[in-house]
């Protein structure tokens, strides 16, 4: 079989997949009678053209890093966690309960406690499908999807009947106390040189970057990470090597759910400052596209998260300034998953064919 240089595999394959997705998206825009060029300009302008735009792009990117890492970790164990959305919503519940429990004196303390709450609730929501997969053989893809629906019903119940303050009409918790307010990037020395006005991106971005590094360490520099990857590559081989499938499935899904839950630090605590319905706003699902686009590597996830941050903020701008519905974002997301995830072999075949000429010349 023809071989491709490693750089082509790492850089060209995702890049070409992305271009194909962009090309088809442009066709979709043409089909609904819109100009792709104009749309692209609006997106670039709104998402990257100003410090304000970057503030939103990085805010979305922060959420997507967490959910992308969540899908990545599970993928390495051969598990497809589609439940990031529900786990993130439950993480939001964890954040809300922690933030409303005490009059927090300083945001650092609140941040540590709320992170714990978010990860705990997210992990707990992933634990049930994980257990059912490991012990009862229920397909984790279907159970995690079901848990997304159950999560949103649970959150509606909690917001309407339990956490809503007396006299408030909209289903949401009370505002979090002032001591839980996370500094936004324009309040952090260094960042405030670029971000002069208030932006939603906040200190969680730094935690997300740290999380990328920690997950890289976990996967490639620890015994547990090795076991996770070995289990994902071949379950019989891992079993033969003494790796306990039940243990690895549980631990991987707990980490995955915890990461998805941690995303709520960014949106619930850092931005909304109270828990609303549908707080994750699809970020859990974006994690799938981010993980595939980032080729299941934390560095790739980081870059892909910024790319999807651009897409999200740009898409919102499209909704504001043009008549293109905001659902275009979901179309692009689907196309990226299709080309980077499912049609990956097609792109490789194309590239191999191209490279067969160059290698022939060298030989």
């Amino acid at each position, binding site marked *: 079989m023809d071989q491709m240089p490693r750089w082509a595999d790492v850089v060209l394959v995702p890049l070409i997949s992305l271009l194909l997705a962009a090309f088809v998206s442009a066709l979709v825009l043409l089909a609904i009678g819109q100009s792709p060029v104009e749309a692209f300009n609006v997106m670039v302008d709104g998402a990257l053209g100003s410090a304000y735009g970057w503030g939103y792009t990085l805010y979305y990117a922060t959420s997507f890093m967490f959910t992308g890492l969540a899908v990545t970790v599970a993928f390495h164990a051969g598990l497809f966690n589609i439940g990031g959305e529900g786990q993130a919503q439950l993480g939001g519940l964890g954040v809300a309960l922690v933030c409303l429990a005490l009059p927090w004196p300083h945001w650092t303390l609140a941040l540590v406690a709320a992170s714990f709450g978010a990860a705990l609730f997210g992990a707990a929501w992933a634990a049930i499908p994980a257990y*059912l997969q490991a012990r009862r053989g*229920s*397909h984790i893809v279907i*159970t995690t999807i079901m848990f997304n629906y159950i999560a949103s019903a649970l959150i509606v119940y909690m917001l309407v009947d339990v956490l809503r303050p007396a006299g408030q009409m909209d289903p949401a918790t009370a505002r979090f106390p002032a001591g839980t307010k996370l500094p936004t990037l324009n309040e952090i020395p260094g960042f405030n040189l670029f971000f002069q006005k208030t932006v939603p991106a906040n200190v969680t971005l730094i935690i997300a970057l740290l999380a990328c590094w920690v997950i890289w360490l976990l996967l490639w520099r620890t015994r547990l990470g090795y076991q996770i990857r070995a289990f994902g590559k071949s379950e019989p081989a891992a079993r033969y090597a003494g790796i306990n499938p039940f243990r690895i499935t549980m631990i991987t899904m707990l980490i995955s759910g915890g990461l998805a839950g941690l995303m709520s630090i960014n949106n619930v605590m850092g931005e909304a400052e109270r828990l609303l319905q549908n707080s994750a706003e699809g970020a859990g699902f974006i994690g799938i596209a981010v993980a595939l686009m980032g080729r299941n590597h934390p560095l790739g996830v980081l870059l892909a998260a910024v790319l999807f941050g651009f897409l999200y903020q740009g898409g919102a701008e499209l909704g504001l300034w043009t008549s293109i519905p905001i659902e275009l974002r*979901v179309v692009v997301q*689907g196309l990226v*998953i*299709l080309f980077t995830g*499912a049609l990956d072999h*097609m792109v490789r075949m194309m590239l191999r064919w191209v490279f067969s000429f160059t290698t022939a010349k060298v030989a």
Partner: protein
Amino acid sequence: MDFATLLQILDSTLRLATPLLLACLAGLFSERAGIFDIGLEGKMLMAAMASGAVAALTGSVWLGLLAGIGASLVLAAIHGIASITFRGNQLISGVALNFLSSGITVLVAQRMFGQGGRTPPLSGAARFNPIELPFAETLRAVPVIGPVYADVISGHSVLVYLALALVPLSWWVLYRTRFGLRLRAVGENPASVDTAGVSVAGLRFAAVAITGVLCGLAGAYMATALQAGFGREMTAGRGYIALAALIFAKWRPWSALWATLLFGFFQALALRPDVVEAVVRVKVPVPALDALPYVLTVLVLAGFVGKAIPPRAGGEPYVKER
């Protein structure tokens, strides 16, 4: 709960089970041929939008039905190309197509009708209307059987009866025809089919196409019979529930009928909070009822399935030479 309420619930059970049954049979053909399809949901949604839109424009529900099947077949073809021709990950392909349809249905409906991603309400010949079965009114006087016949079995749209008829038909195709034997073989051991000189890819594409047609029927039923018009995300996870029913049914047509009727019953209960409260004698919050079909799906998958053995070659692309 009195007899009349029970009849009402059974009536909505049958109505709500129909899209699940069609989608479940759709998944059955695909998965029996070794192609996992998470994308039933997306195909149904796309078919619902296409049929709702065309029925609204032409005023003919039959043209709407054709459009729905066509739209679903397009997605089925993409899934086939990704997972058969290019040997991609079938789960990921399905998920991608679900997102794609979730967005594109709104984009197209908004472009065509400008009503916030819905299609206009349908009425008259643009909808599948209830059919009165023969003697429904004359037999009503017969105790028990009469009301059941008149209120539960009679008075549904033609697609409901078609879905029911597809159960024995699917059984016959799968277990009594050469095509069915080969289709099942290609899901268990594609190499043996290949050795016999039958095209693995051809059979799998045929199976995926059948899935497309059946999902088209399911989606068209959603938009033109169960409801009057397409609304965004109107399938609400039914494609996934159908997959759960398929596992529960252990990939068999008759069991698929019982499984989807059970899930349809759960959905019918979720629509009747008053009845549920009267039976359990506790005030049940509405979100709990909304979550009921999904919770019961998980419970069924977790506890009552027993040993469900999927087709052996399911999810694995076939490579001729290793």
